[in-house]
């Protein structure tokens, strides 16, 4: 089945939309506790070395200032030292004199008001013992290493490539990029009787709870984490930010609730970033366009203190049927903080290289880029030979190409024009693994005919509130407005962090299964009642609709949930359920979402001005549960792809080892004027393997192919291949 834009407008709107636009949805910095004080961060001005001294005399004299806290006077945390070979070494701010990156938080000024704290923070004087730093990936690439173990080669890629006649060997680079969510990182922390409560901007309630319990050496039950609304995160809140530990430590020290909010300028080091990458793709094909050898080597930076590694080479392994494949994944140390997952991490960076290289190859072969992809279409997983649980990529290509009008493309670069503008048409593909993790949910049906559905997940913007409400509504047979979905609290049934496009799959399955079990409880309650028409009826023969139940085809048996529950001694039924993926069945398949992107650029070559005028995005991600939400996610993916391709770059001054555009004027995310027409097509898949919902993730998939498709379109328009993102005007003139 195909959803089109217009049809998607018919789906339910965000259930939290009204709260968001009227301001009643509260974000972290808007929460407070009685007696609360404000903490403002002081950040380092060197990239590496040690703090010699922090002079707080002036700052502490200022009106309203309660205390200046740093490693010098904060009580020690309980964290055990990491094992010498530990990969993850979380950064605990204000716990040592060591400087590992520029703009590292090194002190917090606590005062009665935010303004007093900010002013006093400007008076804190810090002296350092500086050490030499290096922040330029190109300069340290020779020291790059493979953090884990490389996957073995498939076939004999090197030999085949060396002997091949038709081949491409090209290098692609992508700069550091930052998430730049609207909501800044923030925490409000309060200790009361040995119990810690925090409001924190986080994607993962459980991880945050565990992190705090570990750091303070207290029981998880004594930590409560709340995060009811998240103003965009995109991965930036997948690990605890320094604000979290700083607010909690400061509150413990001072004995009052403390709020710490990052300023926009400070935010660039509140969390990691998409790492800088340098990639080489070597690809060869026979005359018919069959890939014979594919090598994808990717190096990206990590920090000086952790081995952060994300895979850029997944698509090289899994997208095309190629008998000889080699992938290399390396990391190199620079003195910046640890990178972090950012929307479509690894995959979108790798796709830019791989899908650009395929495009380059298509010109060498004189084969249409779409045709080249179809000739190398992987019917089964090329790595393992396993079948896909479902894969409608071919249909995505077909429908999106048709909608776009791809068949009218003149293959010759520089051949298409609109007046004085050069027109370029480019395409690419994307994929994203469809994961599922254990998750839990509680469903309560009440005698007033309403339901409360709870899970300790988060909603960082994709519409989790809405999607879960839809799933509960469809399963429970209740109208949307009768259902309240609650998330963002560690006291709710635990669920995994919102990341990797797995929330619908994981939490949605828990909600669906818990809802079914609740209906069974409801029917048990009904069956126990005197005049029950349902005694002896099988659950499968029942029909649940509009808050009523009946035996299929027997309207005379119809009963309202409310009536059944009014007669129930508890006046409600409630089920807490933990769902787990069927790993046995899932393991027999490779499970992934796929997508195809076709787009047009219009270029004023004289001044290097590029505009993406229209995009058609075809997506196959199982069953689409929340059509409006899915459409909005795919649109967002396109916009993110445009940013990555054309405008976004974190500027680092390597002499200072410092990020120099940490604000929304200097870091260019696309604005409305940069965005043309975006058309989304969903090719539904009937997938019984992925999970009981049949839904795969799509939040990240939507951007995967876009940067490559844009670079490919720019080549088609101009004949100029840009392998270094972003493609700003200077690169075309």
């Amino acid at each position: 089945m195909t959803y089109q834009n217009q049809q998607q407008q018919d789906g339910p709107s965000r259930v939290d939309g009204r709260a968001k636009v009227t301001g009643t949805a509260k974000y972290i910095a808007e929460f407070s506790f009685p007696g609360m004080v404000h903490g403002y961060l002081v950040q380092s001005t060197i990239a590496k070395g040690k703090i010699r001294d922090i002079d707080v005399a002036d700052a502490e004299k200022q009106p309203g200032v309660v205390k200046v806290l740093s490693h010098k006077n904060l009580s020690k945390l309980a964290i055990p030292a990491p094992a010498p070979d530990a990969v993850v070494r979380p950064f605990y701010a204000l716990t040592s004199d060591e400087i590992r990156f520029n703009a590292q938080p090194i002190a917090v000024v606590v005062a009665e008001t935010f303004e007093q704290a900010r002013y006093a923070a400007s008076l804190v004087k810090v002296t350092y013992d500086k050490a030499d730093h290096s922040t330029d990936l190109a300069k340290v690439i020779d020291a790059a290493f493979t953090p884990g173990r490389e996957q073995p080669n498939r076939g004999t890629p090197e030999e085949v490539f060396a002997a091949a006649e038709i081949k491409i060997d090209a290098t692609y680079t992508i700069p550091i990029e930052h998430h730049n969510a609207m909501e800044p990182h923030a925490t409000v922390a309060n200790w009361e009787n040995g119990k810690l409560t925090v409001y924190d901007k986080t994607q993962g309630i459980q991880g945050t709870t565990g992190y705090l319990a570990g750091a303070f050496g207290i029981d998880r039950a004594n930590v409560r984490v709340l995060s009811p609304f998240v103003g965009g995160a995109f991965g930036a809140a997948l690990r605890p930010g320094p604000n979290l530990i700083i607010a909690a430590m400061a509150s413990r020290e001072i004995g009052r609730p403390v709020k710490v909010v990052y300023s926009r300028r400070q935010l660039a080091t509140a969390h990691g970033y998409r790492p800088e990458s340098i990639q080489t793709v070597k690809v060869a094909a026979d005359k018919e366009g069959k890939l014979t050898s594919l090598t994808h080597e990717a190096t990206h930076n990590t920090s000086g203190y952790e081995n952060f590694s994300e895979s850029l080479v997944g698509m090289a392994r899994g997208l095309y049927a190629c008998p000889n494949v080699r992938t290399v994944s390396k990391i190199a140390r620079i003195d910046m903080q640890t990178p972090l997952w950012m929307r479509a991490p690894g995959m979108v960076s790798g796709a830019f290289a791989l899908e650009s290289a395929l495009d380059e190859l298509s010109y060498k072969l004189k084969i249409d880029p779409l045709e080249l992809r179809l000739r190398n279409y992987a019917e089964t997983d090329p790595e393992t030979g396993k079948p896909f649980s479902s894969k409608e990529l071919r249909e995505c290509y077909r429908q999106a190409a048709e909608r776009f009008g791809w068949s009218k493309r003149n293959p010759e670069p520089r051949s298409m024009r609109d007046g004085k503008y050069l027109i370029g048409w480019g395409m690419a593909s994307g994929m994203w693994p469809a994961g599922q993790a254990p998750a839990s949910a509680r469903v309560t049906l009440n005698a007033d005919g309403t339901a409360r559905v709870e899970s300790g997940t988060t909603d960082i913007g994709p519409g989790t509130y809405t999607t879960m409400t839809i799933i509960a509504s469809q399963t429970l047979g209740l109208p949307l407005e009768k259902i309240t979905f609650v998330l963002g609290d560690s006291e709710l049934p635990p669920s995994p962090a919102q990341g990797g496009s797995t929330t619908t799959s994981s939490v949605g399955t828990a909600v669906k299964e818990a809802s079914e079990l609740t209906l069974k409880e409801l029917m048990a309650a009904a069956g126990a009642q005197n005049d029950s028409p349902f005694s002896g009826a099988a659950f499968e023969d029942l029909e649940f609709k509009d808050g009523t139940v009946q035996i299929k085809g027997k309207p005379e048996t119809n009963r309202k949930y409310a009536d059944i529950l009014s007669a129930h001694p508890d006046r409600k039924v409630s089920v807490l359920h933990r769902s787990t993926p069927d790993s046995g069945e899932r393991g027999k398949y490779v499970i992934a979402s796929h997508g195809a992107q076709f787009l047009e650029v219009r270029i004023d070559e004289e001044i290097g001005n590029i505009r993406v005028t229209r995009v058609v995005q075809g997506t196959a991600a199982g069953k689409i549960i929340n059509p409006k939400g899915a459409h909005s996610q795919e649109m967002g993916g396109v916009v993110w792809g445009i940013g990555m391709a054309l405008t976004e770059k974190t500027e680092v001054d390597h002499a200072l080892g410092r990020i120099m555009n940490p604000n929304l004027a200097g870091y260019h995310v696309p604005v409305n004027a940069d965005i043309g027409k975006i058309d989304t097509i969903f090719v539904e898949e009937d997938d019984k393997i992925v999970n009981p919902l049949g839904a795969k993730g799509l939040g990240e998939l939507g951007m995967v192919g876009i940067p490559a498709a844009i670079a490919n379109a720019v080549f088609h328009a101009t004949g100029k291949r840009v392998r270094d993102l972003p493609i700003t005007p200077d690169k075309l003139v």
Partner: protein
Amino acid sequence: MRPFAFKRVTTPADAVKTVKENAAARFIAGGTNLIDLMKEGVDLPNELVDISRLSLSLVRSLSGGGVSIGALAKNADTANHPLVRKGFPMLTQAILAGASPQIRNMATNGGNLMQRTRCAYFYDVATPCNKRQPGSGCSAKDGLNRYSAIFGWSDNCVAIHPSDMCVALAALDAVVNVQTVDGRERKINFADFHRLPENAPEKDNTLAHGEMITSIDIPKNNFAPTSYYLKVRDRASYAFALVSVAAALELQNGTIKQARIALGGVAHKPWRCFDAEKALVGKKPSAELFQEAAKNAMSDAKPLSDNGYKVRLAERAIAKALRRSARI
């Protein structure tokens, strides 16, 4: 908050006197630049003198046929004023190419002339910058200088003036009317208003501390139908110019009687290309002629490590803006 006094004045004389007497006092008009600078710790006035309610927001015709725009008229109101739209459409284009609608609604014309550079080092108090802290050094010269100057820079400073409006005003030979500290009126030709960094990059312009802009005069000209403002930037809106061009021609019987070319994004001040202008006079407009002029205009450009592209880009932008002006 860093403590400061706030004084609302009712007469220009009072405004000038208050600021003159306190070296750490600043006028505040729309506040769209000054408040940012205060939040970043770049400018630390201890007294703000609010001039926003003075009656200096009139846009009116001058007796000779030009237009006078008040220092406190909003950028948006100025751009959309019929006298400006009709008589000086290039100024409208330039203003509307800058910032965002919200900012233009707040920003004043005087503030636009006085806005400070957007050089990243100037904005980050943790880095050396001669403009912010004289003697501390210039980080941009051998650092990130993709946005920096290609004309008129010195070893002390490679910053550019970020305004769009000012590029058009430079091309239009505007005159800045100033109230001096001793209560007199002073006129400054636009070309002499902003300065090059030389040995004193902390000084953006030739106003003395306490002097206040009251209005800007634009003399009558015949450029309206044959002028164009072209801005090249990293995204379609809400970005400062990589390079911008204000181009204006006066045509008489098919030949160029007068020409103006001013560039933005290339120097510490709006950059007039006087020689290239002169070379156009008396010639018939053609793509080749404009290409030649554009090339000449860039002949003494001195790019830095990361901004060589500006030379090519500006050359193309000049040629394009001239063609758009001449409608060829």
